[in-house]
């Protein structure tokens, strides 16, 4: 067989394999837009968690939940309470009773199955749209 025929056939076969694999990958990966929204949702969750930590450390110091997030700004290390990365509106905070509170955020997508375990503790599954999560004031430590 003519050497250049072999080369051509091999090139076509290899390219077919590469293209098929790339198409397969396109099915597995999410579109860049969706990925971006997932990242924003992850950012919102992280923001919420940092607020929760601040609230809980405030509650330990003062033995009461803060009235609103703005109070935290003065007390804790948080320079400015995080806000939604897209709309820039602050996350909703509401005290439910003496020992529990609620934080709300508006999510772009519902959380994917795989993110859950990947991010470990503190991660909460969520649907798209406004979601509220309930948190408890940490039990007060016995001071000896």
């Amino acid at each position, binding site marked *: 067989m003519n050497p250049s025929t072999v080369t051509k056939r091999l090139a076509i076969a290899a390219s077919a394999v590469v293209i098929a*694999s790339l198409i397969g990958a396109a099915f597995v*990966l999410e579109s860049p837009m969706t990925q971006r929204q997932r990242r924003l949702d992850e950012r919102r969750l992280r923001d919420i968690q940092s607020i929760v930590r601040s609230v809980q450390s405030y509650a330990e110091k003062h033995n009461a939940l803060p009235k609103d997030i703005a109070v935290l700004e003065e007390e804790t290390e948080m320079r400015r309470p995080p806000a939604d990365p897209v709309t820039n509106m602050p996350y909703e905070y509401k005290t439910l009773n003496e020992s529990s509170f609620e934080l709300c955020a508006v999510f772009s997508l519902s959380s994917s199955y*795989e*993110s859950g375990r990947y991010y470990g503790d503190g991660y909460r599954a969520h649907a798209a749209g406004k979601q509220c999560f309930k948190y408890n004031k940490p039990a007060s430590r016995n001071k000896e």
Partner: protein
Amino acid sequence: MASSSQNLEQFIRAALEKGIPKTEIEQCLLQAHWPAEQIKNALGQFADIAFAIPVPKPRPYLSAREAFLYLLMFTTLYLSACYLGSLLFSFINLGFPDPAMEKSYSWRSEKDSIRLSVSFLLVAYPTFLFISRRIRQELSSKPAARLTVIGRWLTYLTLFVSASFVIGDLVSLVYNVLGGELTIRFFLKVLVVGVIAGTVFWFYLRELRDGERET
């Protein structure tokens, strides 16, 4: 080594100047126990043109431009082969998940790995095809310098690398079969490595043989 081939060349040059035909020179050298391959190479340095003094043939030389082209071609070849393999491995991992790993974790890390593989393939593979074609076109227009020094070296290096992969692949296959650990997942991976490395090896071996046949 160098001095002996210099001696040989000087001898051939002197003999050709005296008008002795190449076949007689070859016979004489064979009688003197020179290896046939070396005689052929040395005789090949001179063109078969009737001229007052022996006419040297152009030798392959090391040019920076050729070095650049060959290095680029083999680099993109290696990247394409490795990341195609990695992409196929990811598909195998997704299709036949390892029961020891948590499913959600492996999904996430496979996706990131797929993204990387796709990125490399999309860029490196077309580049490889383009440069290969370029080199092939240049070689066909200048048959004198069939494979330059760097081209030959890199081709042999590629043979070595791909052969190592094939050998390692077979070793791991035998090792696992002997251990009774043969799963579909493992077998498919062995197949992927074998086919990719084997194809590269086969193709460039042919290239070298074709090149050597022409000179």
